[in-house]
């Protein structure tokens, strides 16, 4: 298990720097929430961290090795990435969709081995999808699809899991369910990186927080240190307070 780190990463789109000298560290066994207003560069940061977008300057490392030097297949076996609102374009059954997460584990010729097939079954069980395994992925509800996609990402037992807005469009129960599952993965030793708009959920599940604004990392550290009235208010340009009471902590907009 290795730490994923971004060192002074800069990425430009035309003249505009979408990320400017952003540095961040994502440790194994910890869930890091990436927060910030719309257009702050969260999705771009995640793409760069996942090795899917090469930065113009700076470096991304997995352990001690620059991510660009890890082969495409080897990287795919070690980290998983889920974009925002992932979709399946054909009515493929749930079991097959989850099995697609093992694409990089397949032999050069031939299909899933018995061991890999068993792994798919195990993950379907873990994500409460056994009853849906024959269902077409295009016919699922938003909450079910989110669960299938998470199972798809996890099936290859990645060291690093990068997820962009997993709770967008989910009702509170399903959002909480997704959050709990991500938390459990981090506890099991995976380095989990999640972009989140739902600050209450972030407060509940995150160990560490990276706060991003206009492509610059303005604050990072343990969740308790970043989730303060001052940091959040400055980050989102609205008066925000973190309220901690007997029922836990929550973020309120004043």
């Amino acid at each position, binding site marked *: 298990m290795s730490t994923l780190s971004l060192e002074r990463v800069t990425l430009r789109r035309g003249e505009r720097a979408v990320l400017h000298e952003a540095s961040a560290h994502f440790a194994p066994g910890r869930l890091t929430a990436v927060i910030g207003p719309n257009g702050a560069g969260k999705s771009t940061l995640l*793409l760069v961290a996942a090795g*899917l977008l090469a930065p113009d300057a700076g470096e991304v490392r997995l352990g001690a090795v620059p991510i660009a030097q890890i082969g495409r297949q080897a990287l795919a076996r070690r980290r998983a990435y889920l*974009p925002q609102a992932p979709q399946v374009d054909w009515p493929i059954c749930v079991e097959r969709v989850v099995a*697609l997460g093992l694409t990089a584990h397949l032999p050069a010729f031939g299909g899933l081995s018995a061991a890999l097939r068993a792994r798919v079954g195990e993950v379907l069980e873990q994500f409460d999808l056994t009853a849906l395994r024959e269902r077409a992925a295009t016919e699922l509800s938003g909450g079910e699809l989110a669960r299938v996609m998470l199972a798809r990402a996890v099936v290859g037992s990645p060291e690093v899991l990068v997820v962009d807005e997993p709770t967008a469009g989910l009702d509170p129960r399903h959002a909480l369910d997704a959050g709990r599952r991500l938390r459990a993965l981090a506890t099991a030793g995976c380095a989990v990186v999640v972009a989140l708009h739902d600050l209450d959920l972030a407060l509940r599940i995150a160990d560490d927080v990276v706060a991003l604004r206009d492509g610059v990392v303005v604050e990072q550290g343990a969740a308790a240190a970043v989730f303060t009235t001052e940091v959040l208010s400055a980050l989102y340009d609205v008066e925000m307070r973190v309220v901690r009471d007997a029922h836990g902590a929550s973020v309120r907009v004043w």
Partner: protein
Amino acid sequence: MTRVLTPGLVLLVAALFCASLAVGTIWFPPITLAHALLGGGVPLVREIVVEIRLPRAILALLVGAITGLSGAVLQGLLRNPLAEPGLLGVSAGASLGAVIAIYYGFAASFALATPLFALAGAMAVIAVALALSRRGGTLALILAGVAVSTIAGAGVSLALNLAPSPYAAYEIMTWLMGSLADRNWDHVVLAGPFILIGAGMLFATARALDALALGEAQAESLGVNVCAARLLALIGTALGIGAATAVAGTIGFVGLIAPHVVRPLVAHRPGATLLPAALAGAAIVLAADLAVRTLPFARDIKLGVFIAVFGAPFFLWLVLHLRRVSP
């Protein structure tokens, strides 16, 4: 169903292939056919079977298979059930090349000029489409394809418009309709290698197409080189469909129909669709060629026209069906 699909289609294609050899103006019983194929029997029968019907059947097989395969690959790559080889302008480019050969009279002086020019036209069009869409993604590719396809189509119309003689215009029209009549071994030798290489490249995209069902970002994250898969699909299509159009003219709709016919039978997996779609395409073209040779009302109908007449209603049904099932 999935397990018996491919063997079933192989048997169907084999049966249609044998029928293509046996059936025509003169019908041959299987035993005569076997004799002729093994080099024995009556010389005239051997001549008909080996020199006329066999190359034609092989071409029908190759053209149908590459068209169905390419349709399946492009639908998977572009994640669009309405994609087909014609969308990228390959057939239009090949047609323009052929029309230039006929228009300037190269075809009259050298028999293989038409297919050679058509092949060059297909390559030129795909090169332009690739260059135009180099920096963009899938949408840029479709738009570039539509643009070059339109330009090539305009070139064909211009040639018809300015045709030096009614005879040239007639020849161009006939060629555009698509046919396998009067093809010989030269055509097989010309198109065969391109179609086989193209097919190899198209089959190599199978795994990438499966992952692409999740979208380009996820496919890329799963270790798939989306860019390489796109190049394989495009160049494979250019080689295969370019060569097919070069020897047979425009055979429309097979590329659209064949993948749709088999897709539900392979649980909609894009990669698993390829082989059955190729077989289904071969079966459709073999059957249609058999029909235009034997059905009394279809004798004068060109192969491409025959397939379009039956393909268009299917296309219409597909559009209506998609509208019904999509939200």
